[in-house]
């Protein structure tokens, strides 16, 4: 959670403003009820026709009510402004810290899931500010204010009043959230299981119909939904205690202050109006406990989210930058020498050796899962091999600055995304300063230029969510154009045509080979290869590379 404290510190001013307004809302509420009670009782005791200075108390009543209206509005706005600012800082922090980590080791397989969880985790943390930091701080200040007033008016009530307030507002919510944690975790797990079965039902609908197993699958879904219901009801046993404990805490604290106050009144140490005022003050102060209680219910989820984010932020980078980077020769062969790689205890690559001379074209065939992608990832140093070494121009790529290495080698995969943004934005990722002529040149080589020219906005066409959509083949061509814009002399192509219709696949592969002429190419694929397009063809089988 340390990173979160740093984030809060970065927005101290916004937070202090929000806190000041939260406190002001609470205090004006206390003043409003307290003075009202005093005023009402004092006027009664003064009696009809008495000379009574109504100006000060009645203007205090009106004043505090108006201030409260303003501070309530300000509290909501400033609290949300601070929260949104902190969330925005958190997004930027996570994004920038993730850069050295890619590919995130465990998440490489299912990036979509990972991204969804990451964004979800960040959103979960917004409650920490709004429902925890601010209300708790405001409750503490209110407790202090109550203590100061009581010290002057009814000192013997300080301990039960402050004790009751803090116990109800802080202790009870946190104890309950801890006790309810196991039930909460169980509910989260069951919800995830239900989601799995729902996805099976939707994604596997065709298989379910074809196999005639709808009743079987429905039965499992039904059981999972019932299990989730039971888990949530167990969780509700704890959460239901919160409002009850609040009622009890408020009532008992008020009764205690009342009892002490009655005694003090009997001995003349407190006036009637002040006694009424103190009882009402207690009622107003407990307004602080509501938000804390609601926040504590979500504390478990927020802690889990913070823990996962913290783990990411503290993770070791996948590869280390050399302290003194070696300089690469102007050109040279890319070679892997006796390379081995394990994923956990599962060997992925075993004793792989391969040399790609400048300008050579190499194809690696093999089933998916045979280790082709891993080899390409090692060649571009997304990870380091366990055994052996990869050299470019005779220099171990571990000794080269990754930015320089990535200037020499580029990777294009079937998952290479089209980013939200314009076509121009997408292409300029490959070459930030390229002019339109250069961009269209690359599009022409990827055979997408005609399509882009026909668009009303051309290169300025917005892609992605709420924008124009490209067909799968067009998206690959756009990514190809982006890759062609980069100066890299060596191109690694990881199944660049997988998942496309066969005729489109064949066209695209032919176009890729034409467009990349003059560069070194390593193509990993399970597709059929055009005759004579490659200098050498290898076959990867269970992590071993052999000439095909």
């Amino acid at each position, binding site marked *: 959670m340390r990173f979160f404290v740093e984030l809060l510190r970065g927005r101290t001013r916004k937070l202090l403003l929000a806190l000041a307004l939260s406190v002001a809302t609470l205090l004006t509420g206390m003043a*409003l009820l307290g003075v009202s009670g005093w005023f009402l009782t004092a006027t009664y005791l003064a009696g009809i026709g008495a000379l009574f200075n109504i100006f000060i108390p009645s203007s205090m009543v009106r004043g505090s009510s108006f201030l409260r209206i303003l501070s309530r509005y300000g509290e909501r706005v400033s609290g949300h402004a601070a929260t949104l600012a902190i969330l925005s800082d958190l997004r930027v922090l996570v994004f920038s810290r993730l850069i050295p980590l890619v590919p995130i080791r465990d998440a490489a397989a299912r990036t979509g899931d990972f991204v969804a969880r990451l964004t979800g985790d960040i959103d979960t943390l917004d409650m920490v500010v709004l429902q925890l930091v601010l209300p708790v701080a405001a409750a503490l200040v209110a407790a202090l204010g109550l203590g100061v007033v009581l010290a002057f008016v009814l000192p013997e009530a300080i301990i039960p009043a402050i004790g009751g307030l803090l116990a109800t507002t802080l202790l009870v919510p946190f104890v309950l959230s801890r006790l309810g944690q196991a039930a909460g975790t169980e509910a989260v797990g069951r919800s995830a299981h239900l989601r799995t079965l729902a996805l099976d039902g939707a994604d596997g609908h065709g298989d379910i119909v074809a196999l005639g197993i709808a009743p079987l699958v429905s039965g499992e879904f039904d059981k999972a939904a019932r299990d989730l219901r039971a888990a949530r009801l167990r969780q509700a046993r704890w959460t239901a205690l919160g409002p009850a404990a609040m009622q009890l805490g408020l009532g008992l604290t008020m009764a205690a202050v009342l009892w002490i106050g009655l005694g003090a009144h*009997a001995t003349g140490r407190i006036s009637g109006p002040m006694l009424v005022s103190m009882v009402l003050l207690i009622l107003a102060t407990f307004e602080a406990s509501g938000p804390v209680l609601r926040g504590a219910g979500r504390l478990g989820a927020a802690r889990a989210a913070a823990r996962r984010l913290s783990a990411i932020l503290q993770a070791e980078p996948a590869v280390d930058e050399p302290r003194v980077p070696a300089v690469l020769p102007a050109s040279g062969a890319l070679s892997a020498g006796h390379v081995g790689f394990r994923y956990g205890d599962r060997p992925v690559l075993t004793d792989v050796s391969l040399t790609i001379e400048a300008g050579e074209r190499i194809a690696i065939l093999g089933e*998916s*899962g045979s280790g082709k992608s891993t080899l390409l990832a090692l060649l571009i140093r997304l990870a380091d091999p366990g055994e052996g070494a990869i050299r470019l121009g005779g220099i171990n790529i571990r000794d080269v600055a990754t930015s320089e290495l990535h200037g020499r080698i580029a990777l294009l995969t079937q998952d290479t995304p089209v980013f939200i943004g314009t076509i121009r934005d997408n292409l300029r990722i490959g070459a930030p300063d390229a002019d339109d002529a250069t961009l269209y040149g690359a599009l022409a080589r990827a055979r997408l230029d005609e399509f882009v020219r026909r668009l009303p906005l051309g290169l300025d066409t917005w892609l992605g969510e709420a924008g124009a959509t490209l067909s799968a083949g067009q998206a690959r061509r756009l990514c190809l154009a982006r890759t062609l814009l980069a100066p890299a002399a060596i191109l690694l192509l990881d199944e660049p045509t997988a998942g496309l219709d066969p005729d489109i696949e064949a066209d695209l592969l032919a176009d890729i080979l034409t467009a990349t002429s003059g560069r070194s190419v390593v193509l990993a694929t399970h597709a059929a290869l055009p005759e004579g397009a490659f200098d050498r063809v290898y076959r990867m089988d269970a992590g071993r590379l052999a000439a095909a």
Partner: protein
Amino acid sequence: MSSVEFDPRASADSLRPEAKAWLSAQRKAAGRWLTVSMLLPLLGGVLIAAQALTLAGILAGVIAGGRSPSDEGGAILILLAVIVARAALALVGERVAARAAEDIKLAVRQSLFAALMARTPEWMRARSSGELTSGMVDQVEALDGYFARFTPAMVAASVLPLVFAIGLMTVDWVVGVIFLVSAPLIPLFMALVGWGAESASRRHLGAMSRLSGLFADRLRGLVVLKLFGRAEDEVGRVQIATEDLAARTMAVLKIAFLSSAVLEFFAALGVAGVAVYVGLTFLGDIPLRSVPLGLEAGLFCLLMAPEVYLPLRTLAAHYHDRASARAAVASLDAVFDGLPEAAPLPVMAARRAVVPVRAASVVIRGLTVTAEGRGKVLDGIDLDITPGERIAILGASGIGKSTLLEAIGRFRSFEGDIRIDDAPVGAIDEGSFRGRVALLVQRPRLFHGTIAGNVRLARPDASDADIRRAAALAHVTDFADRLPDGLETAVGERGRGISGGEAQRVALARIFLSDPGLVLLDEPTAHLDVGTEALVADSILDFAAGRTLIVATHSAALARRMDRIYRIAGGKLLPVPHRPPGSVPTRAGMGDAP
């Protein structure tokens, strides 16, 4: 789940009347629990009044009546009893509300899943499974607050302020009138503010969804950005976008929060008004009463003042639950193409009668399939397949191969006539149809569970040996035996990532475990490399012995091993000249494409 209270996306929805009625109708599922949860706050109102009355009595008795604290012992005991009763009521109320909401969510989930199962594969084609899943899990969860919190709060807010105000009228009519006038104004003002917020949020909606997607988008492509050396630049972009998003959200929130201010305005003014009015009455400055007001009555009015507005405040705090629920219903309505009636889940029918399997005949006459936006995909196709024949359908993807298999397999509606063993396909009951016809769909799904469990789906009573045999035939054991857990390896959503080719073979093993007379395989060797394809083709032919087989494929090597080959072009089925295997002794699958 964001706790930012105002979600403009949620309030900008408009629900059609049927959907609103559907949402109300879901109350039935909770039965009396929901009724109880709506009545409990009213009982709570009685206790609130009792507490204020007792407290005012004690204070007035001591301050104005000259009673000693010990005289008030009984009253204090009553006060404590009321306090405990309120706490107990809060506990019961929460649990009953949770019970009601959980019952409703369970019922809605069951009927959604039943509706999904009742849909045809044709309907599924146009749907996003992610949205359907999120509908059944997340959108249903969004109904929770509506039933657990908003509905009881709504009842309390429409009854309690009015009852309190009328009750206070008997104490002092001016105080009663203050509340009676101000309390109903609150929802009115809030509605006005709400409209403002809604139109403000609509204006920002497009930009907001675009911006909020940007962060996820850049994260997803982080590897690419890094490899191009662009990642650091994107940090700045993400920062600008997310700050822009925050600014736009704040613009909407500033209007939305006016409702908080309105609520506070009335609540604070109510308290202040009562205090000043009662005080001045005590001083005789407002001679509106014939009978003097006592201290107890005055204190009671003051203590009740915040309570009159509290139900409205609670309602406002839960108002976004209503907005979320309505947004969820709108989304379910759109995603599921209409909201489902409460329906029981399908139950397992009696096991299909075991009839000795025999190869089926297929007769197709004038088969025409029209697809939206593509015109006639198949146009008047005739085909006769004798029992035991093996047919290949060649052609590029999207040309209609799958469509033909789907029409035969009852996955798609068609014009014309398809008969299996002389019975029109539409006339065969679902249970026996699926028992006689096996269909391998194009992208088979592996279900959550183990590899063996996935194979077993085809025949739940199969023995382990049967499953191993089917898995071996489909060359599943080739890769499964290399895994530490073998066939018991977990697959599916949260299991080991399994490649497309491996999943294809597990799905084939499922078919090999069943005992159909007609086997329809759509691209059974997609994702397989040439060597594995040949092995799998051998297995398919082994299994097809004594059955009728139709294979849609773009692999010429696989097609050549069938008895007859057709090509689909222009919606027509064209025979491809072909010498059946046996006449040409080739090693399976090693030749080149024609």
